[in-house]
């Protein structure tokens, strides 16, 4: 058996932290690699050693095999743990590690390679009698053959252009009567769009659920499964909520699917950790193989919580060549665990990622809560990487109690400085259908009103406006030098209340207040409240408003006041200046970056004539590309950026002369 004394983690963020934790427990020296943007990241501090591997671009650092191998050599690492993402499922990298005499902590190269190709994976699975989504993609494209194959598969089914994409030529067919017409129109559309009218027929799973099985193998041919995780709640193909056990699996079904999962990876001579993903049709209890992920999953803590296993430790042991220490019959789930992913993103702006500094981040202290945090108070959310803030995992006796607890945790999670999906997560877990376990992969788009997430009740806005006003008052009160013993705002001939205007969700709220003998008379519109500051510190305030006492966590950055209180959540309140400097008129014909981004491609040069809606420039922010288009006809006057440049928000990119 090989020995591992030092492990280099070729990854960043929470997963690096997670792996270091196990390394420490096992007495293994841990090594972090970091790019420029991560110099002060928590995970870097947590490792025993840390090596700089380049600038913030992933291609120059976390995806750069040469640099990572060199770093591993430099610290005389025995093994490399790839985490998830980046190089974790890259067979060439695994192979390179082997060649360089470094243990790659993951499955063997062949297994990775085989599962990397969807077609190959499906073929192997079909051979191993693993159910795959029934379909036809044969050469014979006659209407009759297509029809016969379709009838064999059954309804509903999906017609797809073999060489297509983007939904063109795609048809969902529910009844036999619709079939002829659907085939003809699909073919016509495919021909028009792709110049080829070949069609594929596939079973359509209208109400599918995503259920995956954690599997584990050793280098001695043993494979077990470590129960399932249900990851049906997704948005834009990214998992948001993961739970185990699945609310729809019977013990019998669980066993059957687990056996299939084991059979599937046995067919690959699999070792180390992996995940077999299925699409599950709740209406029929049918399940079909989707893919095998040959890595440790983001959501692995869910499995760890209900089994008390340390999957990272098992990975390291397996990589050393140690036989599996647990048998299938020892694997028993206890209780229920759920994970939600906390992201810096704008849920009501199509989940656009947001960047910025997290000025305050804290979680409540609750039994059974596990937080895998990528960042900490003061961390920057960089445009270069996934904007995940943390994974929040809750474990309890059963689903109901865990959901209640998770709800409490989310209410009491403080994340100030950037937009997050906290309110979105709360909306999900408080949804009736979700609570009942009745959902499918379309849950978010079909069942949630995303536009309602950000909205605050008028009374909440007013409450927060008062909180911000009195907090600001208290800060000024501390700083008073002259007339300190005279009551704040004292008048011998009172004329009007002091005023402060706050902007909450684009609404201006003017709070009028008058300090009177240790309390405040507060007016919003004509409603009068009696408020009192019970206590106040730099980052919190406790207020009584008409007798109701509540605490608020507060963080002020320039004009912004971030307020958290469990009953409302995290809200950003902007202070309106008493003497607003007139906003400069928008630079005429100027185009600025809408968010911090990287300039991917310049499509125009000075002197080019453009028409309205012509593409001008491609930018990328957090791996999402978008194209800026001309809002007017004109000539490009000047371009202020070059390709590859990183720009902050509102950076002037180019100017069009529209004369």
């Amino acid at each position, binding site marked *: 058996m090989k020995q591992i004394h030092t492990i280099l983690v070729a990854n960043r963020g929470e997963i690096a932290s997670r792996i270091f934790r196990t390394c420490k427990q096992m007495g293994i020296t841990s090594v972090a690699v970091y790019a420029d943007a991560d110099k002060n990241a928590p995970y870097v501090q947590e490792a025993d050693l840390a090596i700089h591997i380049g600038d913030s671009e992933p291609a120059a650092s976390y995806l750069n095999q040469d640099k990572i191998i060199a770093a591993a050599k430099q610290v005389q690492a025995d093994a490399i743990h790839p985490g998830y993402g980046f190089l974790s499922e890259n067979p060439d990298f695994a192979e390179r590690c082997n060649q360089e005499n470094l243990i790659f902590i993951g499955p063997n190269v062949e297994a990775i390679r085989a599962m990397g190709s969807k077609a190959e994976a499906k073929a192997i699975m079909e051979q191993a009698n693993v159910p795959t989504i029934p379909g036809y993609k044969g050469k014979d494209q006659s209407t009759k053959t297509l029809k016969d194959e379709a009838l064999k598969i059954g309804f509903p089914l999906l017609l797809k252009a073999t060489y297509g994409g983007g939904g063109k030529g795609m048809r969902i067919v529910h009844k036999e009567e619709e079939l002829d017409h659907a085939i003809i129109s699909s073919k016509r559309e495919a021909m028009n769009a792709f110049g080829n009218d070949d069609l594929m027929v596939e079973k359509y799973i209208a109400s599918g659920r995503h259920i995956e099985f954690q599997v584990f193998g050793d280098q001695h041919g043993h494979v077990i499964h470590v129960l399932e995780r249900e990851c049906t709640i997704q948005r834009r193909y990214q998992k948001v909520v993961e739970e185990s056990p699945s609310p729809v699996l019977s013990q019998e079904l669980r066993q059957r699917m687990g056996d299939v999962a084991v059979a599937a990876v046995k067919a690959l001579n699999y070792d180390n950790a992996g995940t077999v993903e299925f699409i599950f049709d709740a209406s029929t209890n049918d399940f079909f193989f989707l893919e095998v992920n040959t890595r440790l999953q983001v959501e692995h803590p869910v499995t760890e919580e209900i089994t008390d296993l340390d999957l990272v430790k098992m990975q390291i042991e397996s990589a050393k060549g140690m036989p599996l220490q647990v048998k299938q019959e020892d694997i028993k789930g206890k209780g229920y665990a759920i994970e939600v992913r906390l992201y810096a993103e704008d849920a009501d702006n199509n989940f656009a990622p947001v960047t910025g500094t997290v000025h305050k981040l804290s979680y409540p202290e609750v039994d059974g809560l596990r937080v895998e945090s990528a960042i900490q108070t003061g961390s920057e959310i960089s445009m270069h990487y996934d904007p995940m803030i943390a994974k929040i995992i809750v474990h309890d006796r059963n689903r109901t109690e865990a959901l209640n607890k998770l709800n409490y945790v989310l209410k009491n999670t403080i994340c100030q400085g950037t937009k997050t999906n906290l309110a979105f997560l709360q909306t999900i877990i408080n949804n009736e259908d979700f609570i009942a376990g009745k959902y499918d992969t379309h849950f978010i788009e079909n069942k949630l009103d995303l536009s309602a997430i950000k909205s605050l009740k008028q009374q909440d806005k007013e409450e927060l406006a008062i909180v911000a006003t009195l907090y600001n008052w208290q800060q000024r009160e501390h700083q008073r030098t002259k007339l300190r013993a005279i009551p704040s705002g004292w008048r011998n001939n009172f004329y*009007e209340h002091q005023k402060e205007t706050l902007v909450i969700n684009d609404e201006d709220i003017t709070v009028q207040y008058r300090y009177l003998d240790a309390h405040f008379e507060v007016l919003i519109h004509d409603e009068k409240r009696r408020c009192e500051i019970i206590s106040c510190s730099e980052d919190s305030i406790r207020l009584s408003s008409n007798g109701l006492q509540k605490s608020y966590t507060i963080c002020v950055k320039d004009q912004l006041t971030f307020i958290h209180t469990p009953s409302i959540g995290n809200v950003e309140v902007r202070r309106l200046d008493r003497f607003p400097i007139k906003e400069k008129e928008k630079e005429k014909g100027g185009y600025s970056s809408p968010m911090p981004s990287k300039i991917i491609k310049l499509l125009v040069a000075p002197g080019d004539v453009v028409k309205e809606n012509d593409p001008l420039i491609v930018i990328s922010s957090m791996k999402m590309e978008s194209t800026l288009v001309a809002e007017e006809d004109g000539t490009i006057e000047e371009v202020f950026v070059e390709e590859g440049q990183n720009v902050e928000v509102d950076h002037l990119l180019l100017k069009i002369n529209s004369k």
Partner: protein
Amino acid sequence: MGVLISKVNINSAASKENYQKMVDLVDQLNKKYQEGRYQGDEKHITRARKREKLLARERIELLLDRDSPFLELLPLAGMNNKNGFGAGGTSVSGIGLVHGKFCMINSNVGTRKGGSVDYATVFKGLRIGDITRECKLPTINLVESGGANLPDQAKIFNYGGEGFREITRRSELGITTIAVVFGNATAGGAYIPGMSDYSIFQKQAAKVFLAGPPLVKMATNEIATDEELGGAEMHSRVSGVSDYLAEDELDAIRIAREIMEFVPETTPHFIPSDDIKTPLYPSEEILSVVPADIKTPFDVRELIMRITDGSEFAEFKAEYGSTMVCGWSKINGYPVGIIGNNGVIFSESANKGAQFIQLSNHKNIPLLFLQNTTGYMVGKEYERGGIIKNGAKLINAVSNSKVPSITLMIGSSFGAGNYGMNGRSFEPNFLFAYPNSKIGVMGSEQLAGVMEIIQKASNEAKGLPDNPEQTNMIKAMLVAEAESKSSAWHSTSELWDDGIIDPKETRNYLGFCLAVLYNQEIKGTNSYGVWRH
């Protein structure tokens, strides 16, 4: 320090009755204040709102730092003036903090009689000028005034010039004046921005010229518009009368605040520490213990213990000259020498007071006078005892004292007692009155009695028969006349004080004024007029 213990039964019927009388007076006062806050009729206010103009008091609220206290001065000046513009005139003046610095703010009420200046407003301005100079306060004038009220022009013309003279004399002393022009400042009024160290003109609003279009047409036959003659843009770009061109009212106020950021501060004589004790008795009780009727005697210590920190009082010569209570204490942490009357002033009382003033000058401690005296004691014995000589000593000490002082009228203020106790003519830095207080040569009944005796003597000398009916009528008229002329309302209307105050707020007024007075160096004197021993 010794702590004063109250001997008054707050719950006695007499205390309660007094309390009620004082509450009634305070209610009257609040009503007058409310009248003084009048900023013009609905029509003018609506017009101002339509033109997005702020009202005079709103401009002050914006100019002040958030939460800054503001002490309005002379709010009722001219309130009984039959031909005047009512309580406070057409300006609002007071002291507050701008950019953390004490400032005097004057705001013309442009919506009340176009901000024209009546008799009271002129004299209010001059009094404000005194305070500004003595306290070295930067001044911010918020200008929107149509100039002199023409019916009053003869009465005020000569005094009006003083205001301009004082701006530049203060400038010579290094005391800043800023003029923010929101509207009219014409003819003489043009010299307010003209004389100021800094001038800010609001675009499309400021109108600053020596003569408007009609007068120019008359004088030189030239045809000109308001903007051409005195618009903000012309004065900012061409004449240079304006130093700052403001986009709008908010911008103008912002600029004034920006200027204040760079106006240097005076060095405070003393800054009190944070832990300040409050009096042992609630301020509300002042209404119970200070008699509404000035004829009711009361121990001034009952007031002192309700305004000093921790009700403390380091009494001086407690056993001597008992009608003059002297001692040192602190208000809001500021040391202050307090001189209060317990009735008529005897020779010993006068001498004790004079010594106390000398000591306070020696130690550079400001003085607070609590006036409640019917004057110096009269009669053979007292004349023989040299009451004039001793009274003169007190007046000598008060007149030449160089430490800052505040006078508070809490009851009677009659005869030379007013002088010896630092009355208006002795230039206390601030002078406030309780609504129950009275002032005059003598009390109205004494005055009437004296007149009756003189009348009788005169009739006798002329050999005329005694006419009790006529005498009584004359007496009643005199009492009524003297009564109204000696009231605090008349006094404040005549600008003999800087404001009538709600007694409950005494500590805040005094604390505020002491903070202003202590904001510069305090240096007493050792030099007086000739003493007659």
